[in-house]
């Protein structure tokens, strides 16, 4: 079965430290990978996506993600965390033949001052 895994339910980071939110995928075919963020009581907002090309993708709010085909991973990163980055983060994958997204369960990111 095709799936997206976010192995951590919650990630705690001190403000100013680098952060990583992990995502791995298991799909057949060429994956298109996405990160979305959800602030409390809001819908999801698009952060970044990988379609093809450079494995390092830059997105909104200073976030970036690295596509690693051999490890089937697409981890979200930021060099210096802000308290305002605290939110729920979702990784998602689409297949090259299908525009539907397969979603991870989400990771709650908490940035402590």
């Amino acid at each position, binding site marked *: 079965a095709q799936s997206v895994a976010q192995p951590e339910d919650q990630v705690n980071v001190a403000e100013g430290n680098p952060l990583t939110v992990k995502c791995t995928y298991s799909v057949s075919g060429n994956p298109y990978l996405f990160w979305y963020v959800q602030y409390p*009581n809001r*819908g999801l907002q698009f952060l970044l996506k990988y379609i093809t090309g450079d494995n390092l993708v830059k997105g909104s709010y200073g976030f970036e993600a690295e596509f690693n085909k051999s490890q089937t991973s697409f981890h979200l990163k930021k060099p210096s965390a802000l308290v305002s980055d605290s939110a729920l983060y979702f990784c998602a994958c689409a297949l090259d033949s299908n*525009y539907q*997204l397969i979603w991870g*369960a989400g990771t709650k990111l908490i940035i402590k001052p």
Partner: protein
Amino acid sequence: DVKVTQSSRYLVKRTGEKVFLECVQDMDHENMFWYRQDPGLGLRLIYFSYDVKMKEKGDIPEGYSVSREKKERFSLILESASTNQTSMYLCASSFHGTVRSYTFGSGTRLTVV
């Protein structure tokens, strides 16, 4: 500013009631989706539509139906609300034919009592 608008942020309904959740987008998107979001389960696809009067079942269609009479509007219907349908409901839309990011509404938190 492009938008997906969900008609209600919060709803409280009684068991057995027929419930309508409305979603309108102003981006001329072909695809529209209804998800429910529950803690620890991520986003689960209820129904989607890629054209007017077209609908496809997602992963958890039981107890739900949808209507898409106009391109910009996608309605989710709970035929007879039950307490296990208490959840956050998210509407999303996207262009068809390419892997584009989704635009989400702010969500409707439905409580069935």
